[in-house]
């Protein structure tokens, strides 16, 4: 599903590579836990996996397609079709309702719009179903997203990432703003939904207690030679 080969990346103006990964691959339908300390290039790696950033050398491919071979607009379309993304926090547009937030990817991707409407009659039906599965009461759906608690917001974000069954879900520390019970509940729901939809999950966190739930576990400093070079230097 995801293949990384001889990846090198440095920010413009930087003197050293920020990411140097020789090999990383994630099988379809599996879940990967990427562990790394803050500032270890986690967000950069996720940007590369999601095709928002392009590698300086090597290749990053998703579903067998190398991001670098696509034009800017095609990359955006490809990402909209195949990737769901969850941020640490502030995932939602505060001025849209919960339901509209979940439907956002369907505004930009016809593929996800179609897939979301397969079971039900419209994308909205799919969105409602996801919200229900995420344990959000119906009364919340029409409220502006800003009125929800952080835990509720992260569940809405998960529903948004999952809508239209994207092949890959990328989550960037989505539990860092949640306390322990909320975190466990969120992880249960996210993993269950990814499994149910067959989506590949790449989950980044500094919290190693979560690692046991995943099919695979990797430590970013261990595979990122740029980071180890920094430590030894």
């Amino acid at each position: 599903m995801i293949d990384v080969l001889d990846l090198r990346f440095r920010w413009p103006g930087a003197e050293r590579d920020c990411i140097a990964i020789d090999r990383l691959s994630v099988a379809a339908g599996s879940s990967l836990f990427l562990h790394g300390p803050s500032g270890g290039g986690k967000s950069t790696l996720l940007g590369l996996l999601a095709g928002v950033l392009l590698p300086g050398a090597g290749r990053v491919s998703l579903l067998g397609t190398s991001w670098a071979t696509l034009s800017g607009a095609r990359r955006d379309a490809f990402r909209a079709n195949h990737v769901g993304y969850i941020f640490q926090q502030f995932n939602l547009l505060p001025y849209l309702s919960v339901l509209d937030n979940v439907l956002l990817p369907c505004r930009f991707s016809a593929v996800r719009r179609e897939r979301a409407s397969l079971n039900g009659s419209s994308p909205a039906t799919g969105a409602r179903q996801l919200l229900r599965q995420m344990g959000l009461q119906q009364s919340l759906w029409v409220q502006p997203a800003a009125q929800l608690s952080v835990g509720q917001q992260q569940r809405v974000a998960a529903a948004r990432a999952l809508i239209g069954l994207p092949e890959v879900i990328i989550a960037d520390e989505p539990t860092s703003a949640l306390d322990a019970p909320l975190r466990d509940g969120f992880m249960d729901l996210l993993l269950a939904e990814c499994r149910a939809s067959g989506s590949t999950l790449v989950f980044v966190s500094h919290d190693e207690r979560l690692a046991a739930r995943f099919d695979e576990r990797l430590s970013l400093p261990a595979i990122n030679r740029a980071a180890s070079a920094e430590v030894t230097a």
Partner: protein
Amino acid sequence: MKALFTLAARSAWNRRFVLQLVVLSIALSTFLLLGIERIRTDVHENFSQSVSGTDLIVGARTGSVQLLLYSVFRIGSATNNIRWRSVQAIAQQRAVAWVVPISLGDSHRGFPVVGTTTDYFAHFQYGDHQPLGLAQGRLFDGVFDAVIGADVAQRLHYQLGDRIVLAHGDGALAANDHADKPFTVVGVLQPTGTPVDRSVHISLAAMEAIHLDWVAGVPLPSMAVPANQVAAHDLTPKAVTAVLVGLKNRAAVFSVQRAVAEFDGEPLMAVLPGVALDELWDVVGVGERGLLAMSLLVSLVSLAGLVAVILAGLNERRRELAILRAVGAGPRQVMLLLAAEGGLVTLSGVLLGLIAHIAAVGALGPWFQSQFGVALHLQVPGTAEWLLLGGVLGSGWLASLLPGYRAYRLSLVDGLSPRV
């Protein structure tokens, strides 16, 4: 595309309090631009229509603009008068169809008094050859009859039969009035939007009568003539201030003008009202262009405000832009989103300004006319107005591309993890 515009609208609505200010400032500059354009056009129109049907204005030799100013606009005063004999000589020229002498210098509560003949009402025209008409009453007939302009009647609440006292000169000295010879309002003219509205018209004989006992600008009590005895005196005017001349054939205008200039009785001059009006407009037009330049500057400032507000808000919106990127919006769409917002804000501002302009002209038009004597016309925007509106819209949208471009750069650099 439609999805993007709904997003832009909802995002803008979410920040409506700040954007309201921008909308207001754009509305204000639109309002200013339209208002100044309206006033400019209508002032020019009123101005160039303040006299028509008159082929020449004759006065003592002076500047043509000055002659026009005092004879038509009742501004300033004549340096010299024309002898009555000269008026008669001009009237007897073969090409001349009619002459209307006017005698100025007195006033009534700030309104100029015009001594003239009843021919004035027959020949004086304004606008597009529109004659003067009576709203009520009749023309002056007796010596102490007065016909007042529409503004005079309205501002001073005069009705037919009211008695009024004229003041000598501009009325600055309370003692300098003609209280011994009060006039009666016998007629009120229809409004014209010209200086005629602000004038009190009396006969030349009356002008002579109220000055019978005056010598060198002061009343001599020893020579006092009671009002009921003026008929015993010769009331033929000795001099007038200016003469309006109508020709039988307009082609003769230059030869008559030359004849007046070469008149050997006294130094005189004749001006073509249209030419003098244009000369005068050239002078006041500088101020008008200054106004326009000023309102253009105001628009620039409010557009700068638009850019500043959107740019300043951009940092707080990096999170929003990252979310949009994550759900599949491209940097170009992000840029479009910002440009759409700028367009929406500018459009609402321009519309608001246009509505305010229409409302203001509609509601304040009569007040404006009574205060400044300029009739504002509510009309479908002309070419100039469309250009102004389009200019504000276009430059507002162009200005909003600046923050749009910055958002584009930001979302390229930030990717999905804005460093805020």
